[in-house]
Structure formats: structure tokens, C-alpha cells
């Protein structure tokens, strides 16, 4: 009997849960209390201590400007936890709704929606972002909207595909015969079955979002120059990887830990529900 017993094993689930929640709690605390937790200001420069190895004084070492990496990782939690999850949430909600509707109804709705989706999928990279900046200016809100907008098609596509498969299943037919409303069918019959795929897609987009913020910096959106945002730190410091690995490793591990924790947490919640 493969899998089934292990999945129900409460102690394993609990350990995973504890680890995931702890990590998230640490980052949320960092986002809220960076001022208290960080030993140095994230922007304070000590040029004579440029690229110092990790040590007792600087747990994660210093970067090319002599800034304390530990403080920057802690301070970086706030921008990361503010923008990336919001953008992904926006994309997930929008994408799920659009994907369910187009996948279920098909026909003209689907055709039109797909056309529009494809139009945007084809646009050159960053075009919508640059346009948004030109029209709406540079701000955090614009950033969240732009990223959310950028990820919506991907999630819509995934949800639509999964819906196409589910709508042919017998339980959907059964619900229809029972006279359930469309909203019920979509929300209570189909959605729970495809939730797994949605969650996977979203958590991957989370990592994507963190690094997209760094990429958008060059058009002036995203992390302002000097921001301790993790994605920006990794992007800025990868050129120093050979001789100052700590400037890349710690922010990168921060991102990975966030992504992994959220994913594991999502997995555990889903397993709990279906058990």
C-alpha cells in the first residue's frame, strides 16, 4: 500500500508544518520589526570593510559598499513580503476566475478570452510594464498591478486546462443534473479538484515575482537602487559570486526559504483538507 499510510502520518505532517510556519513567522517578524532586529542600518556604508567575510561582527559578511548583509536580509523581508505575495495573489484570483469561466463555458467566451490572452502573451517582454510606467508613473501599486497582470495569463492557462479536463467528469454532470448553479459547480465541484495545480502554479510564480522585481528595476520600476530587496541583492551581487559568495547566498536562501515554506504549508493544508 503505497503512499496512503504515510500521507496520513500525523507526525510527519506536523513537523513540516512547524518548520514552514516558523520560517514564515521569522520573515514576517523581520518585515515588521526590521529596525529592532537588524544590528546595522541596511543602507549604512563602511567602505573600509568592503566584502568582509562572515564573522561575529557581521554574521552574513558585508557587500561591495560595506553594508551588513545580515541587516539587509532582515530589512529585505518587508519589500519582498509586501509586493511579491500581493502580486501573486492578484494573479491567482484573477487567473482562477478567468480560467474557470473560459474552461467551463468554452465557445465564444473562451475564444475571445483566449485571443486577448494570446495578444498579451505575444507582446515583447516588459512592454506592458514600460507602458504602465509611462502612463501611471512609478510606484509600489503600479508594480503590484504590473506583476499581477503579467502572471495572470499563466495562471489562467493552467486553470483553464485543468477545468477542461474536469468538466467532462461524471460528478460535474451529476451536479448539473441536480440543478446546481454554475457558481456552485465551479466553486465546489471543480475548484477543489484543481486546487493542487493552482497552488503549485502560484508558488512557482512567487519566486518568479521576487526576481521579476529585480529585473524591472532597470526601467525604474521595482526595487529602487540600493533597496535591500532580496531579488535585487542577488541580481546585483551575482557578479561577485566568485569572491564574495555570502552576498549572494544569504539573500538567495532567504528567497528559497520563503518559497519552500509557502509551498510546503500549502501542501499540508491541502492534505489536511482532503484527509
Amino acid at each position, binding site marked *: 500500500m503505497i503512499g496512503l499510510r504515510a500521507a496520513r502520518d500525523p507526525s510527519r505532517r506536523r513537523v513540516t508544518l512547524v518548520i514552514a510556519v516558523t520560517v514564515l513567522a521569522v520573515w514576517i517578524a523581520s518585515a515588521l520589526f526590521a529596525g529592532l532586529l537588524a544590528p546595522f542600518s541596511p*543602507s549604512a556604508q563602511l567602505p573600509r570593510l*568592503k566584502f568582509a567575510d562572515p564573522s561575529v561582527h557581521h554574521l552574513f559578511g558585508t557587500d561591495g559598499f560595506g553594508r551588513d548583509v545580515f541587516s539587509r536580509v532582515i530589512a529585505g523581508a518587508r519589500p519582498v513580503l509586501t509586493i511579491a505575495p500581493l502580486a501573486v495573489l492578484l494573479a491567482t484570483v484573477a487567473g482562477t476566475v478567468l480560467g474557470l469561466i473560459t474552461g467551463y463555458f468554452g465557445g465564444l467566451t473562451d475564444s475571445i478570452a483566449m485571443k486577448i490572452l494570446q495578444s498579451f502573451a505575444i507582446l515583447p517582454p516588459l512592454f506592458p510594464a514600460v507602458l504602465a510606467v509611462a502612463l501611471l508613473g512609478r510606484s509600489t501599486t503600479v508594480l503590484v498591478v504590473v506583476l499581477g497582470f503579467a502572471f495572470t495569463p499563466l495562471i489562467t492557462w493552467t486553470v483553464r486546462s485543468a477545468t477542461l479536463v474536469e468538466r467532462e467528469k461524471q460528478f460535474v454532470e451529476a451536479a448539473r443534473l441536480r440543478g446546481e448553479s454554475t457558481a456552485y459547480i465551479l466553486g465546489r465541484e471543480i475548484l477543489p479538484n484543481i486546487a493542487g495545480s493552482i497552488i503549485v502554479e502560484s508558488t512557482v510564480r512567487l519566486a518568479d515575482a521576487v526576481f521579476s522585481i529585480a529585473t524591472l528595476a*532597470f526601467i525604474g520600476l521595482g526595487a529602487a*537602487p540600493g533597496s535591500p530587496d532580496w531579488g535585487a541583492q542577488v541580481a546585483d551581487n551575482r557578479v561577485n559570486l566568485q*569572491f564574495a559568495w555570502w552576498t549572494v547566498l544569504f539573500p538567495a536562501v532567504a528567497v528559497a526559504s520563503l518559497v519552500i515554506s509557502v509551498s510546503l504549508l500549502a501542501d499540508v493544508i491541502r492534505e489536511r483538507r482532503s484527509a
Partner: protein
Amino acid sequence: MSDNELQRQWAGELADLARSGAISRREVLRKASVFGLSIPLIGAVLAACGSDDDKSADTTSASPTTAAGAGTTAGGSETTSASTSGSTPAGKGGILAVGALTPSTEVDPVIGYDAASIAIFQLTHEYLIWLNPDFTLRPQLAESWAPEEEGKRWVVSLRKGVTFSDGTPLDADTVKASYDRLLDPDSESAALSAFDGVLEAGGITVQDESTVVFDLVRPYADFPYLISANTYNTVILPKDYTAPYQDHAIGTGPFVLTSFSATDGAKFSRNETYWDTGKPGLDGVEIKFYKDPQAQVLGLQSGEVDTQVTSIISLLTPVANNPDFTIDQVNGTGVNVFTMRVDQAPFDKKNIRQAVATALDRQAINDTLSNGAAALGNDHLLAPAYPASPTDIPQREIDLDKVKELLAGESVSFKLTFEPPLKDFAVVLQEQLKQAGISVELDQRTSDEFYAGDQATDTPWLFTTANLVGWAGRAVPTQFIIPMIKSDGIWNGSKYANPALDAAADAYDATTDEAEKKKQAKIIAEAMHEDTPVIITDWSASVRPYNSKKWTGISAHPSSFVDFNDVAPV
């Protein structure tokens, strides 16, 4: 060609100055090369100097100390591993692989402006005069040159027997055609601005088959610099040249183009009919493009390439401690200028500008951004590398008490506009000014946006309240001063207007007298230092790493130019 009356007169003045210790032997040599003095006359001047000592503080470029293959650090110490004068190479042959950053526009000798494009056409084409890394001039297609009419007319004698790689002989008509193309008022070349106010279309005449005469608009003692590699688009092209370069790459240079790919790079083989017999030693050169600077360094480390056209000092750390590599370094006149609009708040008051300048820790900027390799700047455009630069203006240093005094309680905040390559500089400035209580908002624009618009009315790099602009080096200080700081300068972003400074700049160009040049330079420097329309924190050093286990004869150049004539395998 023997020296004329004017040259003999200058030689005499030079000898006097040298004897009195006012200028060093090196400066004598440099000036002599500009004046186009013949070898015997130079010898006579030097003999009159007597001693071999360098008598005054001289910060020009690489002192030829050998480093015996030991690794050098990218910052701080300044060593070369090969002398820049043409010593006969030990071995011969081989193909040198060179890394370069992919040009985003076509390689074009007339309009090309990025270092990789320039390096490519510098391998196949040549100038009248070459610019050495120490700012001395070396005859290339011109054999000698002499001024007349106090420097308002220059007569240039071409080297005899030079042919293009297709056999066409080089003659005065060809040289005139090349220059006419650049000086045409409709010319698209940046060279047009370099000759602005000095030489105009129609000013070039052919005296005979191998003599070209330049009649200038005004006397300009440093004219030979303008017809040297310093104005990088002035390569001599065949009379019938048409774009694109890769289809018509016929030049007089040491190499011929054998293949070209806009994405991957260019390949060259030795020009067997090159006029400098015996050179180049190399069988060929391969330029490989990289889109990413770090990838370029990794390519160097893995042996895919053995040297680079341009290098970023901070990226060379992995190579610096590797004994197989040497990093040649030379002081340059490249600079990142912090411009403030003197006609807009908050910079319309001198004390505010001085406050910002005094709040900066220049050595820290140098350490952070250049690993300490740069030379400190003192808020004026007379770089330490220029012989005429004053050395007695007190170096402005960080003094937070003085800043408070200058601000007199006023709270200052402003937006600093820049393009991505200057991002790190902006971040350092922002933090340093924050410590002094001055709040800076960083306004990063894409490069396209930064330089777009109309240069007369609204382009960001010339019209924002405070901005950072990077400049490649120039051999003559007025090439910065006239466009950037003169009242009617075409690239005057600060809108500074000082008639006394204008007059001094004109006087500097007109005179050949070394002492007079120093006097005018001092006037300009003091005015700029006092009024502070721009802040200059440091002058860039130029570095070039290369695999010294495999090659000798590679050196750095203040403008990242390439000269591989003396490269040989170890």
C-alpha cells in the same frame, strides 16, 4: 622634413623651461611630440636639460616598471608588465583572442562610438597620429607635422610608401577625403563636435601628393591631438569607402578583417603588406563578443579569451590574485561628473553647491567603486593627468562641520537623475549625503530615456536639476571645458556662465607657452573649484587584464584603444 622657424622657437622655450625645472623631462617629451619636433631637435632639447630626474610632480600614466609575471592587484598599486615603447618581441605568431562587449549598433568608423566598435576598426584602419597610453603622440600615417602662423596652420607630411590592403596607395587626396567626410556640416559623426570652432569643412588642402595642410579657424596649439586617435572617428578610409564597414574593411592597418558576425564577433589575420615591416608579430586576432561583463571575465578565466577591450575594475577581483594574469593599469581622464543646475533651486546658491561637495568622502568613493585605483578630483576639469593642471589648489575633503556652516540651517533635498551604469555611484552619493543631512531621491532612467529628447531644450542628461554623466577620457582639457563649462557650451548641463573662465579657455588653446597654459588652467580650475557648478570626485583609471603566461606586449589605454603590434607569445 626639417623643423621650421616656429618649431625651433618652441624647442628653445621648452629647453628653457626644462633647464629651470618648471617642467619635467617627461613633459618635455610629451610637448615635443605634440609640436612635431624632429628627433635631432628633441635630442638637442633634452641635452640642454642635463639631468635625468623628473623635476616636478607628474602623475601621468604608467611608469615602466616590470612586474616579472607576478600578479598585480586591480586597485591601489600601479604596475605594468610590458613597456609601451616598441621593443622587439621575443616570439612571433599566434592568434590573440580578445573579449569585447557586444556593440548594439553597427560597427562604423565614421559614426561608431562604443569601445568594441572602435577597437575593431582600429585593427584594420589607422590615424594620422596615434595616442600613446601616456598621452604622448606617435606618428602613424603622418610622418611629421609642423605649425605655421603661430599655430593657425598645420602642415602634415604623410608617410611614404603606405598602401591600403588592396594595394591602393595612401595619398594626400585620400586623407583630405576622409576629413572632409567628417567635417561636412551634415556629418553624423561625433568628430564634428570635436573640431567645433577649430577646423571647418574647406579648411583642408592638398599641397602635394604626400602633404596635407590644415587651415584652422583659430590658433590651436594642441591641434595634433585633434587629428590623432584622440578623435577616434578620424581613421583614414579609402576614397571610395561606403558603409557597411564589414563589407568594405580596406584599411592601412596591421590586420585585415576575415569574418564578421554581429552576434559573435570578428576575426582578423595579419596584413602582409603592412608598412611597418616586421609587425605585427601576431598571425591574427579574434574578437569575441559577450553580452554580459561577468561572462566576459569568466571567459578570460576559462581561457576562451586572453584579454579584454574594456574592463570593470570591480569585476576583476577573481583574476587579480591569479599569477597567470596581469592587470595593466593606466591613469586616465575618464570621469563621472555630478552636474548641478546653477539656475534652479536648490543649486542656485553657491553655498549649497559647496555644501554638497564638502559632504562627500572622496577617498571612500574611490575605494568603493574603483578599488582605490582612481585619482581624486577637486571639482574642476583639470585632471591630474594633464601637465598644465594646477597642483596647489587645496584638495576638497569631507568636513561635516563646514557643511552645516554652509547650509546655514537650510534643509536641502533634490532628485538625482542618472542612467544604469552610474547606479552604484548614485547609491554611494545618496548615503554619504544622507549622513550630512541632505536628502537625495534617486531617479534612475533607462539609457535611451536619459539621452532622448532635444539637446537644445529638454534632454534629461543636460536639463535635469542634478545628474550624473560619465565621460570617456580626452587628451586635452579644453575638450571637456569648452563644451561642458563655457557659457555657450553645447553640453553645458549646469548652465554655468563665467566670462572670465571663457576667456581663459580661449587663451589656453591659443598659446603654446607652457607657463601661460598653466596660468590659464589655474584660472579655470580656481573658478570651478570656488563656484562648484559640477562636482568631480575622481578621475578613472583604465585597466586591461591579460594572460601574461601566454602573451607579452599587451597594455592598458586610457581610452581602451587597442594596439597589438607588439604582442607576442611568451
